[in-house]
């Protein structure tokens, strides 16, 4: 995975998380608890993806600096 892909993935996770926060709150207010858990689960997975992609990007970014 190159750095460009890391950027793309992080921004995709932001988009996913914004939508999931909105849907989670809507479902919570509508007492649709099963859906709350599903949307929240997707959101947490997306957050973990963002975290690991960020770690990968950091490795690539500063490895490049070391090579220079």
């Amino acid at each position: 995975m190159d750095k460009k892909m890391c950027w793309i993935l992080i921004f995709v996770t932001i988009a996913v998380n914004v939508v999931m926060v909105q849907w989670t709150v809507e479902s919570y207010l509508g007492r649709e608890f099963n859906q709350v858990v599903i949307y929240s689960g997707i959101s947490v997975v997306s957050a973990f993806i963002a975290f690991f992609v960020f770690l990968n990007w950091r490795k690539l970014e500063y490895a490049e600096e070391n090579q220079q």
Partner: protein
Amino acid sequence: MTNECKKGRNLKNSKSDMVNLTKNVDQKDDLKYNRRSFLKTAAGASIALGLSTVPFSVRAMMGMAEEENERLEIGRLDQLGEGESMTFNYPTDNDPAILVHTVNGDLVAYNSACTHLMCPVFYKKEEDILLCPCHKGYFDVNNGQPVEGPPQRELPLIEIEVENGIVYATGRKYRHG
């Protein structure tokens, strides 16, 4: 560019060449607002957004364990003429509700806290509609859906049963119609 002082590369006392550029009038901003910081903030925002949903799911799991299908007597049907309404509390004493005998002869019940800012809604017989007087929110009396004004969500529907002339509340639905 040197590889020294990697950890403190974004600090003012760093030995990094980029940090120690001379004649850099915007040095502070260059250190604070740059491509790397931007991506770090973006990743942080994504993680924060993702984790912010966790309290909702914890509360939801607690809510799933609760049962709220208690059967409660509301009142006698013969005391509620067509075009009249009465208030009661369901499922707890902190949940005000309204039972409406519409001009068409239907019996409907909703929690009466407006879904905008929780003001109580009233039945307006002349227009056969539920009205929240605080901000002029209107709800369709037949299905509880908002038809005008600031409310965006429907009123929670209370399921009712009539048995031997007595009206009972038997359950509640938040999303309906």
